[in-house]
C-alpha cells in the first residue's frame, strides 16, 4: 500500500524511468493498478459471499446451477480469452513501433468483447423468460448480480478499448509512450480474469 502510494506521486514519467530495467517495470499507470486491486477486492468479496451462501444451501445451488447455459458461458470464455490475446498483440505491436497495426488488433479485441455482450443478452433474455429474477432464489440473485456486475465491467472495458483504438489509429502509442495502451489493456485483462473465476464458480463447479 505504502509503496503504491509513494510511486503514485512520482511524476508520470514512469515508463521512461523504467526503461532502464524493463523486467521490473510496472506496465500502465499506477492509478489503474490501485483501481484494479479495488475491483478484485469487490469481486473477491462477492465470491466469498457466494461461497457462504452456497455452503448453506448446496442442493438449491446445484439444482439451479444445472439450469444455466454452460455452452453460452463457455463461448463467452473463449471470446474473452481471444479478446485478451488480441489486446496483448496490440500492446506488442505498439511496443515494436507499429502503432497503427495495434489499432487492428484492438478492433479484433473489441469485436470479441462485443460478441460477449451479445451472447450474454441472449442468455439473460432466456433466463428472464424462464422467470429468473433477483427475488426468485438466492442462487438466482447471485447469478444475476455477479454476471451483471461483470457485464457492466465488460461495457466499460469496451469503451476503454474504443478509446485505445482511436488513440492507436492516431499513432499515439510508441515504444517511448506506452502508458495509455498499457493502462487500458491492464483493465481489460482484469475483466477477463474476473470472468475466468466467475464462470467456473457460478456455472460449472458443483
Amino acid at each position, binding site marked *: 500500500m505504502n509503496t503504491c502510494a509513494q510511486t*503514485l506521486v512520482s511524476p508520470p514519467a514512469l515508463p521512461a524511468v523504467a526503461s532502464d530495467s524493463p523486467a521490473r517495470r510496472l506496465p500502465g499507470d499506477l492509478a489503474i493498478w490501485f483501481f484494479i486491486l479495488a475491483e478484485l477486492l469487490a469481486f473477491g468479496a462477492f465470491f466469498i459471499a457466494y461461497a457462504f451462501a452456497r455452503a448453506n444451501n448446496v442442493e438449491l445451488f446445484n439444482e439451479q446451477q444445472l439450469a444455466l447455459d454452460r455452452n453460452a458461458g463457455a463461448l463467452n470464455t473463449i471470446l474473452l480469452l481471444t479478446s485478451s490475446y488480441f489486446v496483448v498483440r496490440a500492446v506488442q505491436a505498439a511496443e515494436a513501433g507499429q502503432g497503427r497495426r495495434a489499432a487492428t488488433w484492438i478492433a479484433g479485441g473489441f469485436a470479441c468483447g462485443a460478441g460477449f455482450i451479445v451472447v450474454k443478452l441472449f442468455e439473460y433474455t432466456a433466463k428472464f423468460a424462464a422467470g429468473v429474477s433477483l427475488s426468485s432464489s438466492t442462487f438466482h440473485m447471485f447469478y444475476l448480480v455477479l454476471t451483471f456486475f461483470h457485464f457492466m465491467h465488460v461495457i466499460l472495458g469496451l469503451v476503454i478499448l474504443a478509446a485505445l483504438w482511436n488513440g492507436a489509429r492516431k499513432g499515439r502509442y510508441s515504444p517511448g509512450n506506452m502508458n495509455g495502451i498499457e493502462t487500458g489493456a491492464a483493465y481489460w485483462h482484469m475483466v477477463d480474469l474476473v470472468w475466468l473465476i466467475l464462470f467456473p464458480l457460478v456455472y460449472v463447479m458443483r
Partner: protein
Amino acid sequence: MKYSSQSVAMPYFIAAIGLFVGQIIFGLAMGLQYVVGDFLFPEIPFNVARMVHTNLLIVWLLFGFMGATYFLIPEEAETELYSPKLALLMFWIFLIAGAATILGYLLVPYSTLAEMTGNNILATMGREFLEQPLITKIGIVIVALAFLFNITMTMLKGRKTVISIVLLMGLWGLAIFFLFSFYNPGNLVKDKFYWWWVVHLWVEGVWELIMAAILAFVLIKVTGVDREVIEKWLYVIITLALVTGLIGTGHHYFWIGTPSYWQWLGSIFSALEPIPFFAMTVFAFNMVNRRRREHPNKAAVLWALGTGVMAFLGAGVWGFLHTLAPVNYYTHGSQITAAHGHMAFYGAYVLVVLTIISYAMPLLRGRAANGERAQVCEMWAFWLMTISMVFITLFLTAAGILQVWLQRVSDTPMPFMAVQDQISLFYWMRLWAGVVFAAGLVTYLASFFVKGDSKPLIHA
C-alpha cells in the same frame, strides 16, 4: 485571494460557523434531555431539538460547501465569478429562509407549521432530516439552481480542471437527489426506499465528490504537489466512492420491507465503502509528506489531515461496524447508529468545511496565514473538538453495545425505556464530552479574533 469575486465566500463561511454554534447549543440541550427528560419541556421537546440539531447541521454544511465553491471555482477556472451579485442575493435568501424555517420549528407546533406552509397541497413534511416545509424545500431548489447556474457559467468561460469538474458533478448530484424529497409515497416501505435516495446518496455518494474535490484543492495549495498527481488520486477516490456508495445504499434496506437480496447487495458493497475513505487518508498524508513548500498556514494542513483520519474512522470503520446484515439485525437503529452518525458527519463533512475555511479565511482577510498565536488557538480548537468527538463516539458505542445486549440479545430482553435507564451513565459521559466539544468550538471562534503578526501575502 486571486480574484475579487472570491470574497462572496466570506458571508457563507460566517453563516456556516454561526449555524454550527446553533447546532451545538441544541446538541447540548438534547444531550441533557437524554438524561433529564423534562429539561426545556414543553417549550422545546426532544423531537424539536433533534430536528433543529440535524437541520442546522445540514444547512451549515451546505453554506460551507457553497462558500467553498465560490472560493474555489474562480481560482480553478482562472476567471471572476459569473455573477457575484447573484451569489450574494442567494446568500440572503438562503439565510433568511433557513432562519425562518428554524423559527417555525421552534415557535409553532409542527402540525400548525405544516398547515401554514401548504403541506396539504403536496405532502413532503414529517420525514427525518427532510422536515422542511414545502416552501423551504422549493426555496432550496431555487437557491441551488441559481447557485449551479452561477458556478456552471463561471466554469464554462474559464479553465476546466479535474477538481472543478468533480466538484460540479457533486453539486449537481446534490441538487438532483434532493428532488426525491418531493416524492413521498403513501406506502411506508417505498417512502423509506426513496428517502434514502436523498439521505444516503448525499452523504455516501455525491457529498464524497464534493469533499474529495475540496480536500484536493486545499492539498494542492498547501503542499505544492503537482496537480497531475493530485488529480490521479482524485479519479481513483471518486470512482471507488461511487462504485461502493451507490449500491451501498442497500445497507439501509435491511428489515424495512424491501426484498431480501438487499441484505447481500447492501452488505457486500457497503463493506467496501471504507476503501475510498482509506484512500483519502493515504492521499492526504502522502501529499503532505511529499510537500514541495512549507505553507505558512499550518492550521489548514492540520484540518486537512484530520479530515482524512476522522472521515476514515467515523464513516469507514464505524460504518463497517454495523453494516453487515447479520450484525445489523441486532444493531439496527440503536445508539451504534448514533455513534457512527456523529463521527462520520464530523470527520468527513464538518472537518472538510473547516479545512477550507481555515485555508480561505485568512486569504479573504488579506493575508497568507494567521499569526502564530491565532494558529495555535485554532489548533487547540481542532484537538479539543476532535478528541471530544472521539469520546462522544466511544461513549455512544458503549451505550449502543449495552443497549443491543439488554434489549435484543439477552435471554430476558428488557423494554426500551428500561434499557435507557440502565445505560444513562454513558449518556452523562457523552454530555460531558459534548461540553468539551462546545469549549473547543468557543476556542475556534476565539481564534478568529486573536491578534498577532499575520503572515503577509506574497504574490508569486
